């Protein structure tokens, strides 16, 4: 079969046909994968919430409060309840002071602010150094762990800054960013505890209305 001539009409027509077919097939795959992608994201969020505040039996994803911290970060607060009682909040928090930019973590606080657990969601820290943050601050060794600590009663900064938390070896900046994110979460939580509590009060009636 002879090759198509490189005339203007042929070129325009070929490119048009190719892009139309490409666009159509992409649209088809997008439609096909739209739901699984949303589900995977939701799943990830749910697993993170379950890990940082265990034991709830409501759907925190439905009661999410989207707040703005005083630094201007978008913070999501997921109230975790057991039989209508607030047992903790999972807070999706972040800072932009990491070594590689934004650090996004999910931290679970008891209603009084004590840290239950955390999970690192997103970061661009140095592999092998800053990336250790996903387990470092959970490890019960020296003064590494922040679990069970309270951001107000304990000085949650790295020991280099006069605090009582051991920074990750050779990753002080990442450690500072992590602790800062925890601090942002706590501040946002205390500032808006009224809002979160009122959401709690309105909740049983809303639930009652459904039932």
């Amino acid at each position, binding site marked *: 079969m002879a090759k198509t001539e490189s005339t203007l009409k042929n070129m325009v027509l070929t490119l048009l046909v190719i892009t139309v077919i490409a666009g159509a097939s992409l649209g088809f795959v997008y439609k096909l994968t739209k739901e*699984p992608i949303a589900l995977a994201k939701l799943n990830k969020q749910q697993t993170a919430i379950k890990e940082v505040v265990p034991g709830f039996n409501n759907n925190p994803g439905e009661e999410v409060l989207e707040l703005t911290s005083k630094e201007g970060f978008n913070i999501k607060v997921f109230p975790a309840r057991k039989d209508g009682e607030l047992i903790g909040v999972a807070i999706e928090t972040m800072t932009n002071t990491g070594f590689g930019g934004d650090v996004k973590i999910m931290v679970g606080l008891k209603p009084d602010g004590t840290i239950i657990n955390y999970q690192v969601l997103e970061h661009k820290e140095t592999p092998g150094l800053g990336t250790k943050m996903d387990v470092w601050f959970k490890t019960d060794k020296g003064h590494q762990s922040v679990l069970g600590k309270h951001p107000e009663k304990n000085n949650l900064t790295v020991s280099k800054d006069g605090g009582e938390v051991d920074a990750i070896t050779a990753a002080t900046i990442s450690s500072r960013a992590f602790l800062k994110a925890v601090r942002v979460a706590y501040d946002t939580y205390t500032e808006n505890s009224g809002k979160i509590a009122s959401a709690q009060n309105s909740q049983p009636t809303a639930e009652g209305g459904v039932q």
Partner: protein
Amino acid sequence: MNQWKNFSKGFFKENAVFTLLLGMCPTLGVTSSAINGLGMGLATTFVLVMSNLVVALIKDFIPDKVRIPSFIVVIATFVTIVEMIMQAYLPSLFDALGLFIPLIVVNCVVLGRAEAFASKNSPVSSIIDGLGMGLGFAMALTILGSVRELLGSGKLFGNVIYPDQYGMLVFVLAPGAFIALGYLIAFINRVKEKA
């Protein structure tokens, strides 16, 4: 053409990474662990096979002067499909490779094979060529990833081989990619010389 030769050339004689030194960006960027290298290699293999097939099928309809834009559209389409499928069904791998998946579009291996092979050969040969080249690329990335993971963090495919405080951190970082790749290429050249 001998199809077995066509398939096997991608592993050694014309290996994209070790011999042709093509596709260095994903090679150096994602191989901080063996599993990342393997995932990236297989994603690239899929794109290579599909784009080679399509390019071989449509090569006669495409006027010469617009062949590169046409090939790029075909490749970009398959890359986006891989990206969406991976995001939907392998979210954890997608998190690790995230940024590098769209970069498969500009991976010289893919466009190189479309231009140098698929646009001149039959669809069947092109699929075999894509498969061989892609798996060769995946093999190279997995080897490089294994070396870096083992030396850098004492693990292999996530299994602890020795405690990670003895690891040489530099191998996980970007400079280690260059060092490891350099030694691997030197080793392979030596083997080739003897063979």
